[in-house]
């Protein structure tokens, strides 16, 4: 490794190479911009690959009654109406074209008998809407986008972690960080940055997320002055594996229920019939997760503290054809043959609805030249995301952010590089290697994960949240005292020392937001305020950097125009005349 900082220059720098980042890159390149894509892992390994069930788009191939208006309503209702209506409208209207476009780039989905894209039912979608390939839809999507990026010869910087956004005055000028493989410091100069860095599920102990989900993007955006919207909204996927311990939290796709799986408690009662008589197992994720939680709390859990998820009645052939990776996952990791035995499942952290506040049409954040798309951005999903809406989110808003960034860079020149900011970040990075600290970054990370699981988990109280906040603030101080062995050469301990700081920023935002939202809405369940409060239903929460501190403020939920509000038969406020 060398002490010199390698510098690269592009019009548009894209941070993250999952669905949103790759789709943004394709669009920005099409707009004539020089594009660089930076990813923490190898290309094609981003978390999108883990998506299983499908992409929600109202094609109406299986249920011809489906259309964008129904998809729009499902999304808004699923989000408990604090979504940004304009994002939900764009998402519902544009998803079909984004799916068809993937096919023109080589993607292949399961087919209907007449050769069109097959669609399956999913939680809280009124009609069969999810375009899918068995239970490996995310792999199909990422490989298609990856192939397209390669074909367009877009520059991809693999295994590079960017840790600070650089600004020139009030606008973005690039980002700086390190190359994982060599340990060299790197700086990217760019006229615009698109953050497509995904979520932060690693801040919880029981999670379906990979090591990458540490909230770098949202924390970097926050540090650069961008607003974080609805941070308290974190999704617990109802069905994660619970046994054996090593795979606890690993995702069991919602497609298992989409294909007709039943949930049972220890008394072999199909409890969703009581909780959600209409939608049953296919109610929205927040509702199913809470039902499983309540059954276990009531002493009706499975041997390892979950619920039973049963697909035996579907028959071996259908299971192996439509859920092949679930069959394989349970057989190889848990010694369970799901064609003969029920799975044991319990809620697992899965997704962040909150994130950087963006302009709906462009993905522009409140910092000039900084765009965000995908999980790191917020607004579309409100208080709860519907399954399948994430993959379409990546495509619709990845494309929009890429296009807007390419347009923006036509009218600006490169911002000046701020050497002091780069040097400051490098000092911070080197602190854990060269300092005299004594804390182990992995163990601090584990303490944070335990605290978040306990205090900011599926069921929240004011007291629990406040205890959790104290733990986070104490861990922030201890994070300055981390020490890691070894050199900068591919050193995961060193990487974790920096990741920990990102995790602490977003954890603090989640907990501060959750304390403020004194109601239950969507995924946010306050047992001390068990009902929805109409006043909070008019508000989005915002976390904002205020000096060295974090401040929570509110913004009114944007009001829908009358023609959209009319779709809800008076359930939502009409825009005042």
């Amino acid at each position, binding site marked *: 490794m060398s002490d010199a900082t390698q510098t690269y220059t592009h019009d548009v720098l894209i941070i993250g190479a999952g669905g949103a980042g790759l789709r943004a890159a394709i669009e920005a390149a099409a707009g004539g911009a020089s594009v660089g894509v930076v990813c923490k*892992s*190898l*290309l*094609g*390994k981003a*978390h999108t*690959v*883990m998506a299983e069930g499908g992409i929600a788009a109202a*094609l109406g191939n299986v249920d011809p009654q489906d259309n964008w208006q129904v998809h729009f309503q499902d999304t808004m209702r699923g989000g408990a109406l604090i979504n940004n209506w304009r994002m939900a409208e764009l998402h519902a209207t544009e998803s079909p074209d984004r799916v*068809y476009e993937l*096919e*023109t780039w*080589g993607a*292949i*989905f*399961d*087919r209907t008998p*007449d*050769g*069109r*894209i097959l669609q399956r039912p999913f939680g809280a979608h009124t009609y069969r809407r999810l375009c899918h*390939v*068995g239970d*490996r839809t995310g*792999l199909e999507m990422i*490989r298609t986008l990856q*192939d*397209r990026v*390669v*074909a367009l010869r877009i520059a991809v910087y*693999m295994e590079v972690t960017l840790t600070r956004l650089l600004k020139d005055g009030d606008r973005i000028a690039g980002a700086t960080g390190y190359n994982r*493989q060599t340990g060299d410091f790197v700086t990217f100069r760019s006229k615009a940055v698109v953050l497509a860095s995904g979520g932060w599920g690693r801040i919880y102990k029981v999670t379906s997320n*990979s*090591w990458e989900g540490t909230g770098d993007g949202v924390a970097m955006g926050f540090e650069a002055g961008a607003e974080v919207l609805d941070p308290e909204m974190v999704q617990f996927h109802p069905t994660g594996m619970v046994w*054996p*311990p*090593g*795979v606890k939290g*690993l*995702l069991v796709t919602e497609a298992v229920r989409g294909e007709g799986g039943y949930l049972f408690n220890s008394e072999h009662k199909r409890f969703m019939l009581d909780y959600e008589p209409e939608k049953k197992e296919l109610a929205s994720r927040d509702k199913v997760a809470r039902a499983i939680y309540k059954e276990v709390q009531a002493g009706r859990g499975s041997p390892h503290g979950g619920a039973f998820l049963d697909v035996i009645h579907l028959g071996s052939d259908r299971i192996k054809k439509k859920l092949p*990776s679930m069959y*394989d*996952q349970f057989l*190889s*990791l*848990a010694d369970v043959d799901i064609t003969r035995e029920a799975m044991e499942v319990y809620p697992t952290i899965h997704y962040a609805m909150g994130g950087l506040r963006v302009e709906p049409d462009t993905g522009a954040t409140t910092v000039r030249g900084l765009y965000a798309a995908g999980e790191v951005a917020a607004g579309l999903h409100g208080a709860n995301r519907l399954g399948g809406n994430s993959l379409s989110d990546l495509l619709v808003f990845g494309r929009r952010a890429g296009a807007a960034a390419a347009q923006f860079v036509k009218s600006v020149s490169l911002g000046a590089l701020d050497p002091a900011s780069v040097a400051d970040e490098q000092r911070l990075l080197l602190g854990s290697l060269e300092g005299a600290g004594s804390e*182990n*970054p*992995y*163990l601090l990370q584990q303490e944070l994960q335990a605290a978040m699981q306990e205090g900011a988990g599926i069921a929240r109280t004011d007291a629990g949240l406040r205890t959790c906040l104290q733990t986070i603030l104490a861990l922030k101080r201890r994070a300055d005292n981390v020490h*890691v*062995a070894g*050199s900068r*050469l*591919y*050193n*995961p*301990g*060193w990487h*974790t020392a920096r990741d920990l700081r990102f995790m602490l920023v977003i954890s603090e935002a989640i907990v501060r937001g959750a304390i403020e939202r004194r109601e239950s809405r969507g995924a946010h369940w306050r047992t001390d305020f068990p009902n929805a409060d109409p006043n909070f239903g008019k508000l989005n929460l915002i976390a904002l950097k205020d000096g060295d501190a974090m401040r929570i403020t509110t913004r009114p939920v944007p009001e829908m125009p009358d023609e959209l509000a009319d779709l809800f038969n008076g359930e939502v406020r009409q825009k005042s005349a």
Partner: protein
Amino acid sequence: MSDTTLLVFRGDSIKTGTEQPFQVPVQEGMVVLDAIHWIQAHAATDLACRWNCKAAKCGSCSAEINGRPRLMCKTRLDEFAGEPIHVWPMRAFPLIKDLVTDVAWNYLVNAEITPFTPKTDEPVPYRMAADDVERVFEFRRCIECFLCQDVCHVLRDHDQKAAYYGPRYMVRIAGLEMHPKDTVNRTALLHREAGIGMCNITKCCQDVCPEHIRITDNAIIPLKERVAGRYYDPIAWVGRKLFGSKAD
């Protein structure tokens, strides 16, 4: 809770690096990747390995476990019945550090393959019959773990990376060639740059594939037949024998 011993390769050169023993407490159902994570947290914070999904969907945590190329996230400790477990990096690629190798060559080769190319006037949305797409699904299951590349003796023992793209890219090409809407013929590429003739069908690649893709049977052999049909037509071969032509 009992302990097991992992002997993990450490170092940034395959020549000077050595196995380092670690005693790891075992929980039921634990996989090798869990043990590596335990070592990182408790014994060697700088131990380098790649991983992402921990669910055999991303193909990041490839390694050689007791000499066999496997995914660490899918290899259970109880399989070894308490015997020491040797964990090494993939040997077909240059070492970076510990269990991490430089797999960049795979990405360079990939970029040489003519991408999916539909007819320009193909009506959108596409109509494709289920039977036509289902035979392509097997190839599209590939998670790019590169274990097949690692075990391929053309690449591993003979380091013929300049002559052969390797099994992973035979799978990718098969997926493109059999895609119902693709219009490009990649036979010349297979014959020349991709070097499909280098494969002598030992089937080691399909033995190690964690996605159970029948790489040799369903990708390489049918592609070899296409190449043979074009470059080694038997009538032309008889002609060369009869008339003593040196041909080609």
